């Protein structure tokens, strides 16, 4: 079955993934995270003790399911290919940058769309930054940017990350070794089996549809091709209906409880870094997990970069805080980006420009 050869099928894949996200939000996941890749990788990094932020530690079965779902479906449809060797360390840095940018904004591109569907105007502001970032990446591609070729590796190499995910799943379900938040977003989750199955379904559909949040906008900018965008529209519409039907749709900027802030410049710059880095890496965080599942060691290294970036963010206070209501005084406390976060975001953007214009395709040199 090919889900990527028509707009209708692509939109259908978006609808299925939207339904999975809506279900998980309904059964316990933080509503506007639902299925945020950056948030969930960050939670997983916390559960492994890579950072000590006690409210965001939980081995999210969704992440495990996504990678394993992509792995299983790609093996079943003979699309699994163990590859590697396309500038892995640059990809590691890109993964780090994607996570830092995401946690300055508070969400990956998938969560940006989910927040947009919940009426959060901050996410619409961030979309401007995301589009600008993707466009800058597309410009670099036009100028001949490339991270070089990946080559086929030993068959087992591509299966390492999926195997690690199975290991984490066993540790999470059979032992008390991993950390799990008692309060905060990390403590909010759907039942494990539901999250795992949701992840598997989402992963399989994302693999078949080539769903990518950076790719969809990149294709529009670069080739005036709107095909991949239909997946995003499908997901957006389902989440919009879900939010409206469950009274979760709140139009505005400073909405407490959705874990977002209204520092417009930093919402824009955070997502600018994410969009730019994702185009250079060949896909958004979701797509990196999927590619890693279908055997790409390069994408797996990018995923490790995401984990490393998440640890940095919470160990050095780079992550932004969300607007919330003080439980005692009932006052609205506006979320903000820390000074460390702002400095890190600027450094990330500078590094992206260096990467973008120093790596050329063989023939374009």
């Amino acid at each position: 079955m090919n889900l990527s050869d028509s707009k209708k099928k692509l939109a259908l894949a978006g609808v299925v993934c939207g339904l999975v996200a809506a279900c998980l939000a309904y059964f316990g996941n933080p509503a506007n995270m639902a299925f945020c890749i950056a948030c969930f990788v960050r939670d997983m990094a916390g559960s492994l003790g890579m950072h000590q932020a006690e409210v965001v530690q939980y081995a999210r079965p969704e992440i495990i399911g996504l990678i394993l779902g992509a792995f299983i479906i790609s093996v079943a449809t003979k699309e699994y290919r163990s590859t590697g060797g396309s500038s892995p360390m640059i990809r590691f840095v890109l993964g780090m940058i994607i996570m830092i940018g995401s946690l300055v904004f508070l969400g990956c591109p998938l969560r940006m769309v989910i927040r947009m569907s919940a009426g959060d105007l901050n996410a619409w502001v961030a979309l401007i930054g995301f589009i600008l970032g993707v466009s800058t990446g597309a410009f670099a591609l036009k100028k001949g940017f490339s991270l070089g070729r990946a080559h086929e590796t030993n068959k087992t190499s591509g299966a390492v990350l999926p195997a690690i995910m199975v290991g984490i799943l066993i540790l999470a379900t059979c032992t008390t070794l991993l950390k799990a938040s008692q309060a905060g977003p990390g403590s909010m989750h759907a039942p494990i089996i539901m999250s795992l199955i949701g992840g598997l379904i989402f992963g399989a559909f994302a693999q078949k549809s080539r769903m990518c949040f950076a790719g969809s906008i990149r294709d529009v900018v670069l080739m005036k091709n709107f095909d991949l965008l239909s997946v995003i529209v499908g997901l957006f519409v389902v989440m919009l209906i879900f939010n409206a039907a469950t009274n979760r749709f709140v139009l505005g900027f400073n909405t407490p409880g959705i874990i977002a802030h209204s520092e417009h410049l930093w919402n824009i710059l955070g997502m600018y870094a994410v969009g730019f880095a994702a185009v250079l890496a060949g896909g958004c965080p979701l797509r990196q997990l999927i590619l890693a599942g279908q055997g790409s060691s390069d994408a797996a290294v990018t995923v490790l970069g995401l984990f490393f970036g998440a640890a940095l963010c919470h160990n050095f206070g780079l992550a932004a805080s969300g607007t919330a209501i003080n439980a005692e005084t009932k006052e609205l406390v506006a979320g903000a980006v820390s000074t460390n976060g702002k400095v890190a975001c600027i450094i990330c953007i500078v590094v992206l420009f260096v990467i973008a214009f120093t790596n050329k395709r063989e023939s374009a040199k």
Partner: protein
Amino acid sequence: MKEVDARGLSCPEPLMMTAEALKSAKGPIKVLVSEAHQRTNVEKFAKDRGKKATTTEKGSEFEIVIE
């Protein structure tokens, strides 16, 4: 026949190289890619431009002739 070797490259490089080759080549072109999703992308790209794409599997890679 003009040949585009896009094996092992990340999205969307194979498509950009195909587009470039189609612009400059007069006759048919041959595109080499290694991933299944790149294959579909190139085939679709050719179809969208009203061209015929014929794919043959070469080991674990794909050879697409666009004419």
